[in-house]
Every structure is written in C-alpha cells, then in structure tokens.
C-alpha cells in the first residue's frame, strides 16, 4: 500500500486530506487506524457534499450510441447510419455508415413540423420516409434531431424504436 508521506503518523494531516475532499487516501496499516471512525465519517460526508456541488461528469455522445453502433446491432440489423443534428442543421454526431450528410434532417423535420402545425396535429414526435434503397426515421430530441437510416431489410418498428430510444438518451443527457 502506498504511504502518504505527509500523513504518516499524523492524524490531523489525514483528516485535512479528508476535509479537502480527497477521496482516496493511501496509507499503511500503521497509519490508517490513526483516523478515528468519527473523523472518517465526517470526511465521507464532506466528500458526498462536494460531489453534489461539483458538476456531473458529461457522458460522451459516442458512449451513448455505442450499444447502437457497435457489434451485432450494426452488422445484423441493417442499420446504415445514425445522425444527431442540431435544429439549425449542424451535425453534432454521425456514424460514417453512408457518408451522407445529416444536414437535411433538420430541413425534413422542419417540414414535418410545419405540416403538422398547419393541419393542427400538434407536436411532431417523429416521422418516417421510405424509399427503394432504405428507410429514414427522424425523432425529436429536444434541441436536436436524431435520424437513423436503415436498408430495406430492417423492420420499420425496430428502426422507429431504436431512433426514439436514442432520442430519449440524447434528451436525457442534454448533449
């Protein structure tokens, strides 16, 4: 076990480290009992308070999309690409499945919203377009739009479910 030089034989120095919110204190067996249980508990309390104050660590978009982009999903499902596009049309994230730009996703979603608004159908949650070579599903993800592109083999229900799931993740993490 690594010894904290400063803290060796000094209970005050150890509790000082605790007070400063240092979560891991390495000490030898000899040094550890020098912190009383009350002091340790107090340190724990301070650390948890610190964790509340500090901003939560951001989860990367790539990490969120990993279950959908890696391994069996991409290979077997027919999914060709996933895009996360800002409402202004700028790409936030895209897999390079097709090399196609996701910029038109915003344009398309806007058209859907416009149509729905004019027909008094309310807020658009998502939409699908089918062409001979594949399907595109667009879903609302707050300030962004998620677009999934699949070939014709992928069932529409699966494409819809995946896109809505990703949209929910994106919205929850506030990317």
């Amino acid at each position: 076990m690594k010894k904290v030089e400063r803290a060796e034989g000094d209970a005050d120095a150890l509790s000082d480290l605790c007070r400063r919110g240092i979560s891991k204190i390495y000490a030898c067996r000899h040094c550890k009992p020098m912190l009383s249980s009350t002091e340790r508990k107090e340190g724990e309390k301070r650390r948890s308070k610190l964790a509340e104050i500090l901003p939560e660590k951001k989860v990367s978009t790539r990490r969120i999309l990993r279950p959908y982009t890696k391994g069996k999903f991409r290979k077997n499902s027919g999914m060709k690409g996933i895009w996360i596009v800002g409402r202004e049309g700028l790409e936030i994230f895209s897999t390079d499945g097709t090399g196609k730009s996701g910029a038109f996703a915003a344009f398309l979603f806007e058209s859907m919203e416009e149509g729905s608004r004019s027909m008094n159908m309310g807020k658009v949650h998502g939409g699908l377009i089918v062409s001979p070579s594949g399907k595109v599903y667009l879903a609302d993800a707050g300030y962004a739009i998620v677009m999934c592109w699949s070939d014709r083999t992928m069932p529409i229900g699966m494409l819809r479910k995946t896109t809505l799931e990703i949209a929910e993740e994106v919205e929850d993490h506030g990317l």
Partner: protein
Amino acid sequence: MYDEVHEILYELDRSKGVLGSLVVSEDGMLIASDLKVDMDEEVVAALGATIVRRFREALSRIGGDPFIEGFIEASGGNLLFSQAGPNVLIVLTERGINIGFARLKIEEARRKIEEVLK
C-alpha cells in the same frame, strides 16, 4: 372514375382510428377525398402535397431515390403518405392506432387507386 376512388377511400376510412383520406396530384390538386373530421380538404391536399414534395427533395439530395411512403407522428394524430402512381394518398389517423395495420390497409387502397387511375 371519381366514384370508384371515393369508394376505395370510404372503405379505407371505415378502418379503426382513420379520420379521413385524400388522393392528391403531385401539384397539390385534390382528386378525391373522404374526411370524417371538420377540415378543409383543399387545404389538407395542398399541405400534404407540400410535405411529400419536401420528402422527395430530401431524398433526391441523398441519392436520388424516389419516394414510396412516409408518415408523421404528432401529438394530435398521425399523417400517412403513400405514393400511388403519379398521385399521393394521404391518410389522417388518430394517435395511438396500430400503424402496422393502417399501413396494410393503405397499401391495399393504394394498389386499387393506382389501378383505377391508370
């Protein structure tokens, strides 16, 4: 011919959750309609054609594929579009209906409309 198309739409509208359907030409002119809800059919026709035109535009930008079908899911209901030859079949449904079943019915109607308007 108009009566035949109207008959097909009437049949389609009898499906659960379907609020109405229209057949519109590419330029937004109404060919036939059967709406259960109080909406101006000419307006729905023009707006539907505009949405489909935008779908086509987007598809042409990403590889020139023709449009086959599409739908929009909104909080107040769904809008389903299907290419029927040179025309478009537009169907309005309630929210939460079985879209899979509705699509089957629409596909059946689309085929019949294509046959009649050939």
